[in-house]
């Protein structure tokens, strides 16, 4: 069970992030989670939105370089140690995390962690085996 994530190449110039947010907003697309990784000369913006296919088509029309990737989203209690527990589980099974970011559900006391793994299938087996709930798009995109 995976979730589609859109990664967008952005130059490090002021206003690019705002511009993308505005384009999505104007199209009535909701940003559920967002993370920005950047170096001194470029950045990668990662987005989880409620209508990924529409967002992809719209951003492409505006000329952005982007890529749709499958990421793994899991739900953990939003309490101290919630994240650490998941990370140590993954480390114990020697599962490599390419990157991760988190967001908090407004309506519940749960946090959602988004992972990009080298080997998603194995990572998902380990998470499931430990009783951690994997989220599908229906769980996080429709809200």
């Amino acid at each position, binding site marked *: 069970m995976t979730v589609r*994530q859109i*990664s967008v*190449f952005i130059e490090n110039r002021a206003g690019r992030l705002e511009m993308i947010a505005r384009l999505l907003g104007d199209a009535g697309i909701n940003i559920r989670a967002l993370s920005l990784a950047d170096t001194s000369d*470029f950045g990668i913006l990662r987005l989880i939105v409620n209508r990924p296919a529409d967002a992809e088509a719209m951003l492409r029309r505006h000329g952005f*370089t*982007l890529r749709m990737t499958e990421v793994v989203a899991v739900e953990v209690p939003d309490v101290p140690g919630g994240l650490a527990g998941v990370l140590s589980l993954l480390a114990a099974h020697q599962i490599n995390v*390419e*990157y991760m970011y988190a967001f908090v559900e407004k309506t519940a006391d749960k946090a959602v962690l988004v992972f990009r793994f080298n080997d998603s299938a194995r990572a998902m087996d380990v998470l499931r085996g430990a009783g951690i709930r994997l989220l599908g798009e229906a769980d996080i995109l429709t809200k």
Partner: protein
Amino acid sequence: MPSSASRIFDPAAERLEPEKRRTLQLERLQTQLRRLYDGSHYYGEKMRAVGVRPQDIRGLEDLARLPFTEKEDLRRQYPYGAMTVPLADVVRLQASTGTTGRPIMVGYTRTDLEIWTQTVARILVAGGLSCDDIVQIAFGYGLFTGGFGLHQGAERVGATVIPVSSGNSERQVALMRDLGVTALVCTPSYALCLAEELERQGITKSDLRLRLGFFGGEFWSEIMRKQIQSRLGLLATDNYGLSEVMGPGVSGECLRQDGMHIAEDHFLCEVVDPETGDSLPDEAEGELVFTTLTRQASPVIRYRTRDRSRILTEPCPCGRTTRRMAKVTGRADDMLIIRGVNVFPSQVETVLLAFSEIRPHYELVVSRDGAMDQLEVRVEADGGLFSDRMGEMAALRDRLQRRLDSVLGLRVRLTLLEPGSLERVPGKARRVRDLRVW
């Protein structure tokens, strides 16, 4: 590795004594000029405009009295204006690969196709090809002369030809392995692209039977040759041609890899000063100029290629007696000198092409910081230059940086841009901004 004493496809032509070859060239030139003076509106006018008649050309040295033909002249004749036989006699049309404006259409009669096929067969045999080889043609087929040109030549040699055309690296690699391909034909940058795909799929040289590579269609350096040879495990030869003159087959390296033997019985090659147009002696670097000697449908007189090279006259141990041309170093019209190093935008393009299957948009910005010239290469990041993983993205950027540094021979500043950042000037790709104040 094949021995350097390989076969010669057409010994009578390729080993002809130089003196006899010059006589043959003059005879063919005069015949061609007489035909064009009376029969071609386009070339007839050109010669009359400078007051030169065919009978004024009494030796090869008189060639310099003939007017040049520029790319732009031919473009203005689109589509059929420069053809010199009735269309009924034309059995094939191809076009120049110009990235700007209208293409230059070129025609081939049956005889033209036959000569084209033979000249390509010559360079393939010179580079080691035989009827035992299985050849993968990964040049684009279509109006571009690369695909059909090499295809026809390889069939003539008797090799087993696989017309894959370009693109879809994954399938290229599968075919290469499954069919036991021994010879690869493509652009040098695509060869590197395939090497990367092989590595991605974990296929090693020993899983393949590759032994020869015939690369052309763009500029490439000796550094690139070494990389391609070691990564693909083959012997790589360079070949040259352009559709305005014929297509591939104009010249090609033998196994010595030391200059491309020119098919001088069909193409007269000069080198001129790109600024003044003055003829330069052998061994001097300048712009290549070609005159076709036997072409029927689309002959050219003193066609300015804009390609920079020089003519090598030292006899080649392979036994061919033709003069050779050195590797093309770039385009005559856009060379930059940065910290004393000659830089051609085409070199940058070649490097970029190896990272992406689509032609990237880029620009070079030259500036001066104190006494030091700086070269910035600005590239729009496209599908092939983007990953959602920061580590991979940074590694890609570093690899591109290193490749640019080593191919250009100087440290460049690399900037990745969002697509659409660079200005698109209709009809002309603006590649260079020189901000230096002299």
